[in-house]
């Protein structure tokens, strides 16, 4: 799932400074689940902006709307009327959602209210951790289902660096587990430790040609 977090208020205020009427567009999928861009967050940001201007600054008006998935043109279409009303859009969706919005309404400036940070999972309520780097050349078959590319601070493909701390913690961040220790334990369980002995040539991060594009043959 895509994880994002809200931008600092100062940055947002700077973006929207020239505009009088704003539409805050939320997305009810990934960013809702990670508490960054769902209906609730839209409401809070809108309220905050209203309050900000009520504190003796220039008058702006704020519209609120949340769609199922902002990365779907058909769904964004629902917002057309509201967008026409506003003179700028502040999107709380992930990068692709924001761009869909921008592409749909080319005559309106569309601004990001959140930073799209990574692909991850919730470790517990309110805490999300990165799991996948979307490198386009999945490696998990050889690492017991643990991705060293993002979960090792150095992205090493061949075993741990020399700095692993006592208790299998990372030398860069003692809070974090050393991915390679995790991999070792996992493979040990599966009795596949021989995989640790293999050498892997540097990864071709150009496996996906940017910009990525996938044409399904299923359709």
């Amino acid at each position: 799932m895509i994880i994002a977090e809200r931008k600092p208020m100062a940055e947002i205020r700077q973006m929207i400074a020239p505009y009088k009427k704003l539409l805050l567009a939320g997305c009810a999928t990934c960013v809702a689940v990670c508490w960054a861009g769902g209906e609730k967050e839209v409401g809070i940001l809108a309220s905050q902006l209203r309050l900000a201007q009520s504190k003796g600054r220039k008058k702006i008006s704020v519209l609120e709307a949340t769609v199922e998935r902002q990365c779907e043109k058909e769904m964004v279409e629902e917002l057309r009327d509201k967008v026409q009303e506003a003179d700028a859009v502040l999107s709380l969706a992930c990068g692709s959602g924001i761009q869909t919005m921008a592409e749909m309404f080319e005559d309106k400036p569309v601004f990001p209210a959140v930073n799209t940070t990574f692909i991850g999972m919730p470790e517990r309520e309110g805490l999300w951790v990165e799991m996948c780097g979307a490198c386009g050349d999945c490696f998990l078959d050889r690492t017991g289902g643990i991705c060293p590319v993002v979960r090792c601070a150095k992205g090493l493909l061949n075993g741990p660096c020399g700095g692993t701390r006592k208790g299998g913690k990372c030398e860069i961040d003692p809070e974090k587990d050393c991915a390679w220790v995790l991999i070792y334990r996992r493979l040990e369980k599966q009795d596949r430790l021989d995989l640790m002995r293999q050498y892997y040539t540097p990864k071709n991060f150009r496996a996906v040609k940017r910009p990525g594009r996938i044409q399904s043959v299923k359709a």
Partner: protein
Amino acid sequence: MNKCIVAFCCEHSAYPAADLAGKLRLHYPESLRIIRVPCAGRVDVIHILKAFENGAVAVLVLGCEDGACHHITGNTRAKERVEYCNMLLKEIEADGSPVAMFNLSPNEPHKFVRAVNEITKRIKEPGR
């Protein structure tokens, strides 16, 4: 614009405490508006912000004593949200309008009145 103080009162503790304050004729600012909630944990960030949008000058969230919440963690969550709210208000330099959480038990009318007076003290006139 009027100068209301909004108090979200847990029906297990703060609300009865407010009633007792009335019974004992303990006076507190007339501008207080009490909203009864089943637990301080029901109070959401947006409720607090909306209160300010509607011209409240301060918001109180009153729940059970820490460790005696009828819903175990409701009052601790409320406290976290109140802190988050203060952060949000700071972001927009609106920290002149205070939000505070107090814990009390149903037989503590004096503590209720003290909470109200406490928050009244913290109110800063806008622009100062």
